[in-house]
C-alpha cells in the first residue's frame, strides 16, 4: 500500500502532469485533424498528390520519437524546447492515420452512391458535406482514435524536451529507481489511452450507418471528453495560482530561465541556483529535465539562460576533443573555447566532480579484495557488463576504456538505460557498470567504485554554463557556489532525492539554509 500512500502525497503533481499530458494530446490531435482532414480530402480530389504526401507522413511516423524531438529543437519558430515542440512532433506523428483514413474512408464509398449524389444535383461542397464525410466518418474516426492513442504514448517522451506530461514521472522514476513514480506515470497514461480509446470508440459507433443508439453513445463519449476537460480545468486553476505567486516575485530584473539535464544531480544544482536567484528577487522560470544534449542546444537557441554542466562532457561531447586528464587544462580550454565559439561563459567550479565510476557489487569487491579497475580485468572475462547509451557512444566511453585497461568481455556488454544499470547490477543481472561517482545509489545499494588507476577518465568538474548577457545577474550566485559542494556532499544530496525520495526543491532549500548558517 506504499503506492497508495505515494498517490496521496503526490496527487496534485500527478494531476498537473495529467493535465499537461491531456493538453499535449488534445492540441496536437486537433492540429493533426485540422491539417490532416483537409489534406486527406485534397488527396481524394488530386490523386497524384497521394504518393508524395502519404509518403511524407509515413516517414514522419518511422522517425523515432526522441530523434524527432531532437531534430525539431534547432529549427527556429517551430522548434525549441517545451510544449510547442512537443505538440508539433506529436501532430506530425498523428498526421498519418488521420490523412490515410480520410482518404481510405472517402475513396471507399460505393461509386454508385457518389454517382447518385452528383446526379441528384449536389454541388461539390454539398456532396462532400452531405455524403462523403458522413459516410467516411466511421473510418476517419478510427484514424483519429489511432492518432490519439499513439499520441498518448508518444507524449510520454515529450518530457525529455521539457514539455511536461506523465513522461516526467516515468523518466524520473527510471532515473531514481523509484517504482512508485514509474507505475504512477505509466498507469496514468495507460488509463488515459484507454479512456480516449473508449470515448472515440463510442463516437465511431454512434456515426455508424443507421445506428439507433447513437444518442447514448454520444453521451458516453462526451462524458469522457468532459471528464478530460475537467482535469485540464482543475489542473489549470492550481497552475494559475502558482503562476500568480511566481509573478509576485518578479521585479524589474530580467527573468532568468534555469535549465537542467535529466538526472537528479543536475536538477538539484539547478534548483539550488534557482532558489538563490529567487531569494534575491529575480524571477526564475524552471526548464528542467532536458534529455541528451538538449540543454546545450536550448542554451544556444536562447530558450534557457543557464544550466549545470561538467567540464569533461563539454570538452569531449560538445567540443569534440580527445579526452585529457588534467582538470585545470580541461576547465581553462573549455572556458576559452565556449566564450569564443558559443558566446557562453563558465562559472567557477562548484567544488566536486562527477566522474565516470566503474562499479561492482560491494560483496564481490570485498570477497576478491578488488580496489582498482586493473584488479578486475583478469576476472572480468566472463562478466556481463552493462552501460548507458551515453557511455557506449562517447569519445571517452566504452571503446577507449576497454582498450586502455585491456578488458576483453566474452559477452557483448548490454547497452541500456543508465539508471537501469544500477538496479541490474544490484540484482546480479550485470557484474560491472559505469555509473556516476556522485550517485547516491552507490552507497545506498552497497556498490563499490573501483579506482581509475590508469587515469583513463577525463575530469568532470561541475560548473554552470550561462549565456554571456546574463552573467551580471548570475555572478554573485556563482561566487557563492564556488567550491561550495564537495563530492561527498553532492553524493549525500543525490541520495536524499534518489534514496530518501525527497523532492529536489526541499533538498536544495535545506542545503541553502545550511550554508547560510556556515557563512
Amino acid at each position, binding site marked *: 500500500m506504499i503506492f497508495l500512500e505515494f498517490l496521496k502525497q503526490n496527487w496534485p503533481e500527478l494531476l498537473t502532469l495529467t493535465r499537461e499530458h491531456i493538453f499535449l494530446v488534445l492540441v496536437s490531435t486537433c492540429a493533426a485533424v485540422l491539417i490532416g482532414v483537409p489534406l486527406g480530402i485534397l488527396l481524394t480530389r488530386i490523386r497524384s498528390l497521394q504518393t508524395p504526401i502519404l509518403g511524407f507522413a509515413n516517414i514522419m511516423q518511422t522517425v523515432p520519437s526522441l530523434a524527432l524531438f531532437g531534430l525539431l529543437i534547432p529549427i527556429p519558430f517551430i522548434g525549441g524546447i517545451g510544449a510547442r515542440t512537443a505538440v508539433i512532433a506529436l501532430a506530425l506523428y498523428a498526421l498519418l492515420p488521420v490523412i490515410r483514413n480520410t482518404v481510405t474512408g472517402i475513396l471507399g464509398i460505393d461509386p*454508385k*452512391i457518389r*454517382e*447518385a*449524389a*452528383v*446526379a*441528384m*444535383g*449536389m*454541388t461539390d461542397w*454539398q456532396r462532400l458535406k*452531405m*455524403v462523403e464525410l*458522413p*459516410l467516411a466518418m466511421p473510418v476517419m474516426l478510427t484514424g483519429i482514435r489511432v492518432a490519439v492513442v499513439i499520441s498518448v504514448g508518444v507524449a510520454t517522451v515529450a518530457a525529455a524536451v521539457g514539455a511536461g506530461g506523465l513522461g516526467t514521472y516515468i523518466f524520473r522514476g527510471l532515473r531514481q529507481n523509484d517504482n512508485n513514480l514509474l507505475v504512477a506515470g505509466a498507469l496514468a497514461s495507460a488509463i488515459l489511452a484507454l479512456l480516449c480509446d473508449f470515448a472515440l470508440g463510442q463516437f465511431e459507433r454512434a456515426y455508424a*450507418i*443507421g445506428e439507433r443508439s447513437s444518442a447514448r453513445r454520444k453521451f458516453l463519449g462526451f462524458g469522457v471528453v468532459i471528464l478530460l476537460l475537467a482535469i485540464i480545468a482543475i489542473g489549470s486553476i492550481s497552475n494559475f495560482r502558482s503562476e500568480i505567486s511566481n509573478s509576485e516575485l518578479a521585479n524589474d530584473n530580467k527573468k532568468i530561465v534555469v535549465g537542467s539535464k535529466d538526472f537528479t544531480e543536475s536538477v538539484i544544482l539547478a534548483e539550488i541556483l534557482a532558489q538563490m536567484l529567487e531569494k534575491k528577487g529575480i524571477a526564475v522560470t524552471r526548464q528542467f529535465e532536458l534529455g541528451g544534449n538538449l540543454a546545450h542546444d536550448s542554451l544556444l537557441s536562447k530558450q534557457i539562460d543557464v544550466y549545470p554542466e561538467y567540464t569533461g562532457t563539454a570538452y569531449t561531447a560538445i567540443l569534440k576533443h580527445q579526452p585529457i586528464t588534467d582538470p585545470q587544462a580541461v576547465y581553462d580550454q573549455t572556458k576559452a573555447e565556449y566564450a569564443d565559439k558559443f558566446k557562453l561563459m563558465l562559472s567557477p567550479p562548484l567544488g566536486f566532480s562527477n566522474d565516470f565510476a566503474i562499479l561492482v557489487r560491494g560483496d564481490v569487491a570485498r570477497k576478491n579484495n578488488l580496489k582498482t579497475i586493473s584488479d578486475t580485468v583478469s576476472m572480468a572475462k566472463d562478466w556481463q557488463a552493462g552501460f548507458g547509451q551515453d557511455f557506449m557512444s562517447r569519445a571517452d566511453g566504452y571503446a577507449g576504456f576497454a582498450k586502455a585497461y585491456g578488458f576483453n568481455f566474452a559477452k557483448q556488454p548490454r547497452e541500456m538505460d543508465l539508471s537501469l544499470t544500477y538496479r541490474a547490477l544490484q540484482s546480479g543481472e550485470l557484474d560491472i557498470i559505469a555509473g556516476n561517482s556522485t550517485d547516491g545509489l552507490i552507497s545506498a545499494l552497497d556498490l563499490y567504485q573501483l579506482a581509475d588507476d590508469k587515469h583513463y577518465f577525463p575530469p568532470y568538474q561541475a560548473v554552470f554554463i550561462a549565456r554571456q548577457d546574463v552573467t551580471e545577474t548570475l555572478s554573485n550566485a556563482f561566487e557563492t557556489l564556488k567550491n561550495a559542494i564537495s563530492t561527498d556532499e553532492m553524493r549525500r544530496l543525490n541520495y536524499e532525492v534518489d534514496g530518501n525520495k525527497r523532492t529536489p526543491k526541499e533538498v536544495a532549500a535545506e542545503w541553502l539554509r545550511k550554508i547560510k548558517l556556515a557563512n
Partner: protein
Amino acid sequence: MTDTDKIVEFRSVGYAIGDTKILDDLNVTISKGDILILLGESGCGKTTTLKLVNRLIEQTSGEVCVDGRSTTDWDEIALRRHIGYVLQDGGLFPHFTVAANVALVLRLENWDEGRKQKRTTEMLDLVGLDPAKFTTRYPHELSGGQRQRVGVARALASDPDLLLLDEPFGALDAITRTNLQKEFARLVRDLGKTAVFVTHDLHEAMLLGTRIALMDKGSIVLIETPQHFERSELTLARAFLETVKL
C-alpha cells in the same frame, strides 16, 4: 412535332476516351411523353448515352440538347436537379432515412419543412410504400424492391418532366421485377413523364417503351416502336427476340 415537344435531342453526338470511340454519331430525338428504351448488350454504350443527358459525362463531339438548350449551356447543377435519375438498386444514401432520401432534391432546392414532408408522404404513397411505416427506416432495413421504389420516389419528388433510369430493376428477383415494371409503366403513363430507360432485357423494353433504340458498339442500329421492333430482320434484333420466346 413542334420544337417545344422536343425534350431531348442528340445531334451527331460522339464520345471518345483518347483514341477509343465509345459512342459514334448518335442522332435521336425524344419528344414529350416518349419512353425511349436504350437496349443493348453490356458495353454497347447505352449507359454512357444516358449519362450524357444530365452531363454526368460530357460528349467529345456533337451536341445534346435538353429542353431545346445544349447541355453545355446549362448550369450542370440546375440541369441535374431538373432531371430525375434512378440507379440500379436505388442508389440510395445509406446514412439517410427513407424520408431524407426521397426529400433530397427538395432539400437541395431549399423547400420548407412542411411542404417537404407533405411531398415526401405523397411520393411514398405514389410508389406504394406506407409512409407511416417507412419514413424513418434506413435503406439497409428495406428489401431490394422497396429500395427501388424509394429510388423512384426520390427521382419523382421534385416533379421533373424527364426521368433517366439506368437498369433500375436489373438486380431484382423476377416476381418483384415484373410487379415493379407494371406499376412503373402505369405511373409514368399517368404522370405523363418523358423517360430514357436503359436495359438489356427486351421483355422490359417491350413492356415499358414507346420506342426502342437498339445499340451496338456505340451506335444506334435500329430505332422502332415495340410493334415494329418485333418484325425487324436485323440479326441483333432477332437475337434479342429469341430471348423472350420460350
